[in-house]
């Protein structure tokens, strides 16, 4: 556990427990999950029960108790994406990566997630890979996109 890193995050929010959700988001971004010993440390530092920290950790979709992959692939499942075939996009991605929704590849490179509307409905169906938006992405093109991404990553 890197205490210095946690202290930096806590200082950013003046150690105010009103910002517990933001603090956990920063931890999630840094560690790619919420380690239990770290949640315990935060509870102590902020003077809140561990139960409250774990309640938040399991309530909101942004958090994970298992390490997520190096790259996060989010398939938007908003309504506009749905009517334009988002579930078929998710299936295609899942086949290409060999993992199901919510899972991480064995090499810890990719996590595949079905997410609620990312708000780019005008260019549905949409996939977000590490904060980069890809619009008008049909199932076949999405499979190609992943294949290319994996190939480039392997270089």
């Amino acid at each position, binding site marked *: 556990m890197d205490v210095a890193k946690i202290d930096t995050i806590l200082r950013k929010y003046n150690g105010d427990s009103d*910002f517990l959700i933001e603090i956990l988001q920063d931890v999630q971004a840094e560690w790619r999950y919420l380690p239990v010993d770290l949640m315990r440390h935060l509870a102590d530092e902020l003077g809140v029960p561990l139960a409250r920290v774990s309640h938040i950790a399991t309530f909101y979709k942004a958090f994970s108790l298992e390490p997520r992959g190096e790259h996060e692939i989010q398939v938007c499942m908003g309504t506009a994406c749905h*009517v334009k075939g988002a579930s078929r996009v998710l299936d295609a991605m899942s086949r290409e990566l060999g993992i199901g929704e919510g899972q991480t590849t064995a090499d810890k490179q990719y996590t595949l997630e079905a997410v*609620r509307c990312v708000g780019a409905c*005008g260019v*549905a169906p949409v996939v977000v890979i590490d904060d980069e938006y890809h619009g008008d992405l049909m199932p076949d093109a999405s499979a190609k996109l992943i294949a290319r991404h994996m190939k480039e990553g392997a270089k």
Partner: protein
Amino acid sequence: MTQINFSNLGAAATAEQKRLAGYKAMLMVCTGTGCVSAKAFSLLDNLKEEISKRDLDKDFLVVGTGCNGFCGQGPILVVQPEGVFYQRLKKTDMARIVEEHLIGGKPVEDLMHRDLSSNKPIHKMDDIPFFSKQKLIALRNKGLVDPENIDSYFARNGYMALKEALEKGSPKSVLDEVKTSALRGRGGGGFPAGVKWASCMAAVEKTGKEPVVVCNADEGDPGAFMDRSIIETDPHTVLEGMCLGAYAIGAKEGFVYIRKEYPLAVTRLEKAISQARDRGLLGDGIMGSDFSFDIIIHRGAGAFVCGESTALMASMEGRAGEPSPKYIHNVESGYKDRPTVLNNVETWANIPVIVDKGGKWFAAIGTGDVSKDPWGGSSGTKVFSLVGNINNTGLVEVPMGITMREIIFDVGGGIPDGREFKAVQTGGPSGGCLPASLLDEPVDFDTLTRAGSMMGSGGMIVMDDHTCMVDVAKYFMEFLKDESCGKCNPCREGTVTLYGILDRITSGKGVKGDIDELERISRVMEAGSLCQLGATACNPVLSTLRYFREEYDAHIDEKRCPGKVCKDLITFTINDECNGCMVCAKRCPTNAISGEKKAKHTIDQKECIKCGICNDVCKYDAVNVE
């Protein structure tokens, strides 16, 4: 950094207007999320490079703006002030625009939007049907300001309404204009903002507690991105609206609760707040007056239920977003038990214009008579995200009372690929699906509710005849069962049970009595749920049952999916149009397609997983889906 006060705001606006007028043209490149997904940022850099290369920086200003609205045509560039509109641009087009249009004076016609029927290029943005029927209030600055530069907002008379209110008006005068405007909340509920503010002030008087104002930017409805676009396009209008609200009710503290899924909006909002603080428009003694107010951002962490007001307050306090019973309203006891005014982004964005032009001006737009009672109609405009199976996808702002047909067929340009209109979904997961027979109904709060849907935050998802309405109901129920917080039984168990029944029907295992069961459980959820998420969760089911009952019957009685969507009820075959190009065989993920080159292919039904890729990639309409 010059501090803005009553006497120099006008000068700051004029200075910026003069600076901009010094350019021969301004090149407004849309950097909203839709265009960014089509590589708008690299286009922006490329355009700047082409301008600099020719030493034209003094003549032409390149600005990255927020969402232009015509997302389906991105990336977009508008040449101002003449208003020439370019769409679907590539890097290589930038040099052409600079050479042919900016230097040569001849706009590049083949990069323009084309009329859907005549196929002629349309030069001016305002002449494109998508734009010409719109009326802009909340989006008045879209494409015209640089969202990351506060001076650019000054140039559009930004913060002038706040100045006038602080200098010459009073909290009461602001409240009176908002009351007269009859502005109803744009987040979904449609509660009149003026009534809400007045109740909050009454609560302050009674309890003596300090009030707060909150902006709900937790736009959770799938298929809606109005609030995201307003913040990405014109963040200061939201801040100015909140300042005016805070001044009216006497609040010193304000919060914006925003989804973390909107990173660009969060960044632009943070920048806007910091610029407003630097210029004395947030903080102590705003513009030299004795009014002090500041705004703090809270980022949501992914929970649809946090759009519900009591859940949102809990989340802002750093807790799980579970709703509480509403015996006491937020205006009396909301954030940390203080009187709280909660309005959404679009509502706040309307406030500066209402205060500037007057409540009467606003109330004259829209439907019904709101002069005595804000519930008497729907005043003003509404921003919709017009998406799904429609030619012109994007963001539109139209006057209340416009018909659905005008929005979908005039503004939206109708249904693509020669298909038929089947339904339009409004109101998100709490709303419903409306059929073609209601296309001529006016769009306002009360008409939509009567029709079994609701205004919601403004998602308008158009569906063509290749959509299965039972599948749509199942889609929303899957969403809601995942997003139900689980606190109360009717919602937690109801959504799961409804989903189970719908899943069975779409798998071809529906039985007689399923529809009665769907209706019975829906009524229980409506009556017994703790918050509106549960109470309205049945709307997608009930509205599809009301208008598309025959599709349920086809699934249950005939084991047939009329929309040809439900995998268990369809098969893919190849017809005689096949010329043996082999593309489908190559792209089939399970190698289920066989056949020689230049000979008709066949699909092995045992191997086929019905992914539909063969149909997507076939250029010859040779795949039948039955």
